[in-house]
């Protein structure tokens, strides 16, 4: 037992003495999350609104007043033609444009329903989402008041159009993806590199010849990174919560448990890589090309899996991050629990067991 503790202590020395490793380990999660988060701008206190009123009746006037008095919006730019909308967005003059079709008020009173177009800037998905939320709220409130007054049902149908980025991606969606990526990087890449480094330096021969058992060597290598990865999970979650207000709607304990499972998967991948690779360089290449790239591209982090061609969709099933993403999105954003993603958890668990068995088997007690 003493020899095992000595081993783990030595691993921590390696980590803490290598400034580059330390920077990557602790700097990366924070920098990544800030980069991703701020790339998706989040300031919504000054929404600049433009209105193109082709109807110009009392109802559109009342709605405009309501919007202005809601306090969410700062100034209104009156447009005269639909062609101006695009330019106004591109120049950053407005965050939202509302378009009333001709005869809007007339139609609403006559048919009981009319549609209004709400156009937002999709390159700021977060802003976009929040702004449309505000607008819908105001419209709904007005609709209610009007219905009460008229004593019959009226329906203002908002039609949302997002310019520049029709697919909504927000920082909320990025956090789970980022967790999957960073944990993979720290766990798989770092473990595979540290084991291959011992091979390169010839120290692995000594360790193999020593009374340390193979599983002790593996555990000794893995435990420090397990701890660090776990710290990373906490860093990401706390940063996401404090800076961007990303909530965790589901159980935080369950989230940590699922993260733990995923870290184990990534660690066993790292050990597997180190049994194949003879040098640090090879380990790095396998980790980056064989793990990181597929994870970014095929896990659903960047491109939705549903829109992939079927062969890629098939391949995406063997990527652990895909299952982890489904779990974490469900947990954090939807607030659902194991009853919904027990299947995904089981798959991840199965993968981990399989990988651990293979890598322990492949980890040689001798040289080849």
């Amino acid at each position, binding site marked *: 037992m003493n020899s095992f503790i*000595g081993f783990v202590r030595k691993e921590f020395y390696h980590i803490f003495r*290598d400034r580059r490793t330390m920077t990557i380990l602790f700097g990366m999660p924070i920098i990544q999350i800030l980069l991703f988060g701020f790339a998706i701008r989040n300031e919504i206190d000054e929404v600049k609104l433009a209105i193109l009123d082709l109807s110009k009746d009392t109802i559109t006037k009342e709605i405009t007043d309501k919007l202005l008095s809601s306090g969410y919006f700062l100034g209104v730019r009156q447009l005269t033609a639909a062609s101006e909308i695009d330019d106004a967005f591109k120049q950053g003059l407005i965050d939202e444009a509302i378009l009333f079709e001709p005869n809007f008020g007339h139609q609403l009173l006559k048919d009981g329903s009319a549609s209004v177009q709400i156009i937002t800037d999709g390159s700021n998905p977060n802003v976009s989402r929040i702004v449309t939320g505000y607008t819908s709220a105001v419209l709904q409130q007005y609709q209610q008041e009007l219905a009460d007054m008229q004593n019959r049902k009226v329906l203002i149908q908002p039609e949302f159009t997002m310019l520049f980025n029709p697919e909504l991606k927000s920082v909320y969606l990025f956090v789970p993806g980022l967790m999957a990526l960073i944990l993979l990087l720290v766990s798989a890449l770092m473990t595979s590199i540290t084991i291959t480094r011992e091979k390169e*330096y010839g120290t692995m*021969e*000594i360790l193999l010849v020593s009374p340390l058992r193979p599983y002790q060597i593996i555990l000794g290598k893995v435990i420090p990174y397990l701890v660090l990865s776990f710290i990373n999970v906490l860093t990401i979650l706390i940063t996401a919560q404090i800076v961007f207000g990303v909530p965790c709607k589901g159980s935080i304990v369950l989230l940590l448990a699922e993260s733990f499972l995923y870290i184990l998967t990534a660690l066993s991948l790292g050990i597997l890589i180190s049994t194949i690779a003879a040098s640090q360089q090879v380990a790095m290449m396998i980790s980056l090309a064989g793990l990181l790239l597929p994870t970014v591209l095929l896990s659903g982090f960047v491109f939705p899996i549903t829109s992939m061609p079927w062969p890629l969709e098939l391949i995406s099933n063997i990527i652990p991050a895909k299952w982890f993403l489904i779990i974490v999105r469900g947990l954090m954003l939807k607030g659902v629990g194991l009853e919904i993603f027990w299947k995904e958890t089981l798959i991840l668990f199965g993968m981990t067991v399989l990988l651990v068995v293979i890598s322990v088997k492949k980890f040689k007690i*001798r040289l080849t």
Partner: protein
Amino acid sequence: MSNAVVVIQNLSKTYGEISALHDINIKVMQGESFGLIGPDGAGKTTLFRILTTLLLPDSGSVAVCGFDVQKDYKAVRASIGYMPERFSLYQDLTVEENLAFFASVFGTTIRANYELIQDIYEQIEPFKNRRAGDLSGGMKQKLALSCALIHKPQVIFLDEPTTGVDAVSRKEFWQMLAKLKQSGITILVSTPYMDEAELCDRVALIQHGRIMDIDRPSAITSTFSGPLFALKSKQMYRLMRCLKAYEHTKSVFAFGDSIHYTDVRAENPIKAIRQHLQRHGFDDLEIEEIRPGIEDTFMALMEHKSESL
């Protein structure tokens, strides 16, 4: 009273088509210092890896400290110390941390076995808080040896500890081994430097995976057939060429500041050689009969082997 610590019988090992070791038989006694002498690629490292249970033999039996390296590899591992060829310690750990780590790996402490390494470790102790990566070559070697000894092994395997090390550090290293030997530990060491053979109790000369000879250094050199002559002149390169062209030459090799020469003739040829060379204008020729060294014998064996092949 002395029993065999290492027993190798009919050991062979091949990598694919290449025969790395061929029918090796070696017995090393307790307390002996045994040298494995041969150039790079002769099979020294392969043999050491088999002895330290890191590789499996294809055929033959190998026992270390009475345990079979295949079946009882755990018992073997617990009783040996090993310093691999490219062993470079943990560069980012300090001297003391390295030593403490290897002690803990073997389930012991520096204090428990300090006695054995004291002589060696004392020399690097003033630098115990320095990172191993910042040590000089000689000091690194001392640390490596300390680490290999820290668990008090019965036998220690040193794979080319002096390769690429300057002549002075090499000398110091061998002095350390001589002292270590007094504590009763069995030492197996490999080296490509022929002159180091004389520092071992017994040596095996190895080339192309085959043992050419195995004995005490003095016994090995006594197998050298025929008298050996050392020749000197100011024009060494020309002398060399002249001797190579000489009809009675058996072998001629440059050897430091002289040329080592053997003759095919049975009777003492000194006179004839001197006359021959004088005719070629070597007026300052010095010639004397000398006792062959390990390197002379090694080369003679190499030539003999390549002739018989």
